[in-house]
């Protein structure tokens, strides 16, 4: 990988503001060809209200045409920091069907890392009190 290091998976250039219900699709971080592993951290800063927020980490193997869920992290009504590590070298010999915002909660799909990453947040309920979610990754 040409430029390993820290990256922020942003929503419109910054952290995800968690407020009203809906699906919030983050920005693709591109230029990650050759990525061998991704250590991803999601920090949920809870304010008030809300019901749940499901974070999906996605990659793509066709330059963004088909997003693929590779991690699904649940958040609710408390401040939580969750970290995972995914490797591109894990064999995946059973064919996987790409999913978008459908991966089972709390699970990951290892071994599928393309040339880009993004985060998608599905919010249920209405959060307030400056609730936000910051997703960062260390790519190697």
């Amino acid at each position, binding site marked *: 990988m040409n*430029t390993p*290091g*820290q*990256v*922020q998976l*942003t929503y419109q*250039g*910054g*952290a995800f*503001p968690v407020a009203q219900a809906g699906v919030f699709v983050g*920005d693709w*971080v591109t*230029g990650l060809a050759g990525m061998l592993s991704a250590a991803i951290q999601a*920090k949920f*800063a809870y*304010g008030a209200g809300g019901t749940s927020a499901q974070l999906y980490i996605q990659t793509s193997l066709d330059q963004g045409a088909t997003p693929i869920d590779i991690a699904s992290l649940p958040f609710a009504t408390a401040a939580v920091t969750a970290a995972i590590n995914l490797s591109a070298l894990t064999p995946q010999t059973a064919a996987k069907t790409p999913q978008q915002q459908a991966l089972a909660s709390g699970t990951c799909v290892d071994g599928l890392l393309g040339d880009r990453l993004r985060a998608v947040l599905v919010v249920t309920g209405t959060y307030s009190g*400056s*609730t*936000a979610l*910051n997703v*960062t990754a260390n790519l190697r």
Partner: protein
Amino acid sequence: MIDPSAQAFTAAGIERSGVVVTFQRVSGFAPNTFIFSADLKAIVSMDRDDGQEVGQTGYGSRKPGAITQDSRDVIVMASALSAARFPLPLRKHDRVILALTGEKFSIIHVNPYKRALAGAIELTIVGVS
């Protein structure tokens, strides 16, 4: 379109004459704010009142040629920001911190077009307390 020779010349100039600065993007709302930083080199030019000459009065800040005391012009390579994975484009109120002195500045103007041929971005920053 970026001219490769202009890009190389500008990058060499920044490498030679630039100083290490930290770009920061602050997102979220207090108390839940997040900061993403990137350290790289940039040329920082200082327009500072020398305190000796009498300032010209009656010259409105909006007239061409007016400069704001304590403002700086910064030239940074877009490729350097991209390589540092800083979320582009740069925005007003992004922070710039001079590594040498620790001075903190806020971006008030981004001009990606003036030096687009060289792949560089010119910023105007002002100090913040």
